[in-house]
């Protein structure tokens, strides 16, 4: 399973879940607004309410591709500007 987020891409479910678990620390509510399915893919629209780094309600769209009942690829889209600082890496944090 590959998850392509706005700031990072995770090549497997474990890597994604590890980061998603951390993200949940700043998420106070996730409200699914609608799920649109077509064949082996689905679009999910949800409102994400966060407490940090800004108190905000952000509309998140996710495009899921499914094979044999399992999500094999997911891509997320939302206005990430309030959250960019969380993922910014100062220049000295390069690793190669």
């Amino acid at each position: 399973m590959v998850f392509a987020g706005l700031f990072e891409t995770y090549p497997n479910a474990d890597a994604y879940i590890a980061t998603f678990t951390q993200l949940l620390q700043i998420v106070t509510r996730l409200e699914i607004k609608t799920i649109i399915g077509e064949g082996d893919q689905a679009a999910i629209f949800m409102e994400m309410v966060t407490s940090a780094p800004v108190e905000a309600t952000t509309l998140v769209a996710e495009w899921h591709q499914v094979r044999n009942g399992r999500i094999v690829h997911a891509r997320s889209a939302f206005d990430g500007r309030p959250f960019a600082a969380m993922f910014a890496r100062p220049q000295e944090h390069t690793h190669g």
Partner: protein
Amino acid sequence: MVDLTHQVPIDAPAARVYAAVTTAAGNRGWWTADSTVDEKVGGSAEFGFEKRAVVFHMRIDRLVPDRELVMSCHGGPPEWQGTTLRWRIDSDGKQSILRFTHGGWKELTDYCAGCNSMWGRLMYRLKDFVEGGKPDPQWRE
């Protein structure tokens, strides 16, 4: 596209230089202690930093024993996505020339320039490790 290119002479045979970039133990000697490498074409390699706050997920695309390694990035920082690390070794049997290219950057950003500086530093750490044989990775966790 932007390619970052480096080159260092190393007083060691090609086989030792090759081992330093193609094996987990080798990469643990100069780059990061959190290195895993499945040493075959199509195999995966992972390089973790700062307790895996950052992980580069790589795939080995080409291996030519004692001569060349090409890896491509398939997970990690977005700027790294799709970029390739190419190590090429020229040797006269005693001294080697290690040529390195981190290629395929979409644009020359501040982050990219910072990585270029870091690669320069790492090249000399790699050289010291191969010549001296004592592991001393830039990142220890």
